């Protein structure tokens, strides 16, 4: 994909910001449950999502249109799932599963590898839905 349209870039930036907010709320809600490392990792993920221009956009411009649409769908699903977890989750095992998958997503975004990010988005989305 040579160049994202302004609307696509907007959609991506909004999705990333919404997920960032969800990750921050998740970290705040389950702060006492999380280890120090997990708190820091979630904070790093939130920061990466906040830097979407530097990270996600750079990744997204290397994706095909179909993969970009799929990534946007996953981003929205993950944000929805994380927000749902913040509102309803009480089970420690599930909190840790969501945490682990989000941290994996953060690592994938940090590498900047489009295939890795797409795969991490897919598995994070699946893990949160499970």
């Amino acid at each position: 994909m040579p160049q994202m349209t302004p609307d696509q870039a907007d959609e991506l930036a909004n999705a990333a910001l919404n997920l960032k907010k969800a990750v921050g709320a998740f970290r705040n809600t389950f702060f006492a449950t999380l280890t120090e490392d997990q708190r820091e990792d979630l904070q790093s993920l939130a920061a990466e999502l906040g830097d979407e221009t530097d990270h996600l956009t750079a990744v997204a411009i290397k994706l095909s249109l179909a993969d970009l649409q799929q990534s946007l769908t996953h981003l929205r699903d993950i944000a929805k799932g994380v927000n749902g977890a913040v509102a309803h989750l009480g089970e420690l095992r599930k909190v840790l599963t969501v945490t682990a998958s989000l941290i994996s997503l953060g690592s994938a975004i940090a590498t900047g590898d489009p295939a890795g990010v797409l795969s991490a988005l897919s598995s994070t989305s699946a893990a949160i839905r499970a």
Partner: protein
Amino acid sequence: MLKAPTATGLVAATSAALLLALSSCATPDAVRQFVSTACEATSQFSPFVQDIADSCIRRKLAERPVTEIADSSGAVTAACKEDIDLAPELLGSLKVLTNYFNALHSLASDQAVTYDKEIDSFAANLQAAVGFPAPATDAVKGLAKFLLDSAASGYQRAHLTSALKAADVDVTTLTNTLGRIAGVEYVRDLDNEQDSLKNRYIDAMRSAGHNDALAFLLQRHWAADLATLQKRRGAALSFQAALAKIQGGHHQLALHAGRWSAAELSKELGPFTASLQTLVKNFQVAAF
């Protein structure tokens, strides 16, 4: 054989001549007022442009550990490089737009066009970037070329009509891009900053434990920070709205160029001019 003019005919001819004279005086007034207000509006937004990069820096600082005492400026500046690099391009583009409206004002006032010569090298070196796409850079180059040509060729008021028509696409493209950067991207940056800041306050509040005095102070600081962000958001939206008014007014001018009816122009440009003046006042109350 020529017929001697009747008294009625003389009155009618005189009235028509007077109306024509009034019309030709009133028309440039309406145009001058609009372009002068547009020029003033575009010249007042440089603090906002600078705050795009500053918002990124504040956000990155807010994402540092609450307990950290360190000079993080290097890391933070590196993280915000894209926004920092964008600032000169936006400031230069605003300057081109301001000079363009100033040139229109000169033409409408029967004066020679002058402009800031730095614009020539700025436009020549301007390149498209992620934050400032190719159509916008082309528009800046187009307006800069108009300035160069109008000064070099000694354009007169007669050129006003062709100038308005020729530049309308560039003005539309540039105001759209600048408006989007302000009203969509910068507003999202502020939202992003607010989220990071909120989490920082939550972390600080959590570490304060049950210290009510400290909690009270944190709440006050958070409220003040939030109010500042709201003002900046309002300023950005005013800027976007001002650019839309400039674009709309310019388009009306371009459409009616050559068909100078003072009454129509006043009616069509008046609301744009009045709205612009209000929006500039709204912008000026923002805390930068």
